[in-house]
């Protein structure tokens, strides 16, 4: 038993929390686990396959998780930013949750892959990671694994796209987004999509058509990505969840880069930092304005 399992068992048996949300081995790869019985705490695992962002289960929209009682959640560095985001936006109270940080050496792209990290299997999000050792947590467990292998896959793709003409970019994106079947998995797995009623579900007015036409798909993705501007923590869950492998991570990543460039803001694991779209500076760059 690792210190993570012992800690989980301790928190549960002492009654500090009612449920520990962590990772377990499922029938096909690693998956989220909800441990309520201290005796079951030993089934928790953590390795490079633990790609899911468990902060999503703290989202108050998960009413069926909220009813379980006080929660301890196992987070990687990137996930701790999402928890901070939820606290920043008053979706969760800091005192209502126990955060167990795990030191992380990078994760693979999909939970059903093998644990071996190579330049090919490592997730894109790990390349731009600055919190392999979470700071925003109550407990920090497990030793720090070696740094993840380096891949420039995502950076290359963004560079390639930005070099294209707008028409070429449209050709690329219209082909990608045309596959969209509007299942909204990208929204549901996003820890920061906290709207009780999403604009895509509203019909008065119906800004976003429900039809899986290119028109609706583009409208939906642009809207979604804009809503996440300055809030996205680059956990890449949207891209992972997409059943049709649409490279949604490129959109969120590009916007995050623009936010950083213009407003000097990077997704933060400090809940007291103000998100960039909710504030302004009088001297913001405005070269694009006539």
């Amino acid at each position: 038993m690792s210190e993570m399992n012992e800690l989980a068992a301790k928190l549960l048996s002492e009654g500090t929390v009612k449920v520990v949300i962590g990772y377990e081995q499922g029938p096909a790869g690693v998956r989220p686990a909800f441990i309520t019985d201290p005796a079951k705490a030993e089934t928790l695992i953590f390795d490079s396959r633990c790609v899911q962002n468990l902060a999503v289960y703290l989202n108050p929209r998960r009413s069926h998780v909220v009813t379980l009682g006080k929660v301890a959640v196992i987070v990687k560095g990137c996930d701790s930013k999402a928890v901070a985001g939820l606290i920043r936006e008053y979706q969760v109270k800091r005192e209502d949750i126990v955060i167990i940080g795990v030191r992380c050496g990078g994760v693979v792209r999909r939970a059903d892959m093998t644990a071996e990290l190579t330049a090919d299997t490592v997730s894109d999000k790990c390349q731009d990671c600055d919190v392999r050792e979470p700071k925003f947590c109550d407990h920090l467990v497990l030793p720090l694994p070696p740094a993840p292998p380096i891949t420039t896959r995502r950076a290359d793709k963004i560079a390639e796209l930005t070099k294209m003409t707008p028409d070429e970019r449209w050709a690329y994106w219209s082909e990608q987004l045309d596959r969209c079947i509007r299942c909204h998995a990208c929204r549901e797995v996003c820890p920061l999509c906290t709207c009780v009623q999403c604009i895509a579900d509203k019909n008065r007015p119906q800004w976003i058509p429900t039809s899986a036409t290119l028109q609706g798909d583009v409208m939906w993705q642009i809207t979604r990505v804009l809503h996440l501007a300055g809030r996205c923590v680059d956990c890449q869950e949207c891209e992972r969840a997409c059943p049709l492998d649409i490279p949604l991570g490129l959109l969120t990543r590009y916007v995050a880069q623009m936010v950083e460039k213009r407003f000097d803001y990077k997704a933060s694991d400090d809940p007291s930092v103000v998100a960039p779209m909710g504030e302004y500076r009088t001297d913001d760059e405005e070269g694009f304005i006539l």
Partner: protein
Amino acid sequence: MTIKMVSHADLAALVAELIAGNTQVIAPVQAKENPAATDYKQIQKLEDATLGTLPRRSIKEFLFPPSEVFLRYKQHKGDVTVEEASLTRPKQVIIGAKPCDVASTDILDKVMNWDYRDELWFARREATTIVSLLCPGLDNNCFCTSVGAGPDSTSGSDAMLIPVDGGYLVELVTEKGKALFGARAKEVTDSKLLAKVEELRQEARKKVEQNLPVVPAEMPEWLAANFANVYWDTLPLRCHGCGACTFVCPTCHCFEIADEREDVGGGVRRRNWDACQTGKFTVHTSGHNPRNTQKERFRQRVMHKFSIYPKRFGDLLCTGCGRCARVCPGGMSIQEAVCQLMEIAGAEPQGNGK
């Protein structure tokens, strides 16, 4: 059972001939951005196809498109003229479909022809010829043999291809299938080949059968009597409620009807795929929602597939393709749920929630 032989060259020639005759030919095609994935897509020649893989989306979209036009209207002040969707559909042939995908068509025929006949579905059904391909069994997410289908099932197929040396054996199931192959399907001269077919079938079945026992016939009734089983409380915790499972499912057929304006004074009414896993599926205008949490929604999905549908129409609303488990971002698996349900099914029923 008529089994004939068709050579590679003949199959390619058939595809070329169909395309020349303005028939759309659809087959699994490797996805550009992900070499490991395929999609059913229109092909221009047989070489475009990557036969044998399980595409990301099922063939249902060619019979029941994600977004299908019911009517277009033009409006001028209070007057409306309506143009109905055409019921003449271009002929299409789907080649290399997975038996689990194809099995869904016969199942869905029942709901589409229940009192009211959905001509939009049947127009596409009639314009479509489906040639499936014997599946060797893919991975441990497969459980077609447990739900009445199988890797060698010809249910829904007009013909089934069985890969052998030098080409394919083709099992001609329907008249449509016979007509499609016509003289290209030659008599099988080598009797050993037929024995080989049986061997391939058994092998495939055996591979899939390891994954899950057959769902017992009592399951629908048992589920109905266990609507309030405590099992439902623990199961869907990790479910995100995204509905990706329903969208890739070959048998999920729920839809919504939506009007969209296209221009001033004109627009379109469509039906779009919808998913029982989302909250807005059942919410009343008043805000009341009969299935308010993920527990109820996931239970509904399992119930619909393994209790409601079979009680109404006889067939389980599942073909065991395993796509739902493969795409689930939360690591849920209906196969696992069914397995666990079968385990506890021996125990006392826990009532229907009253």
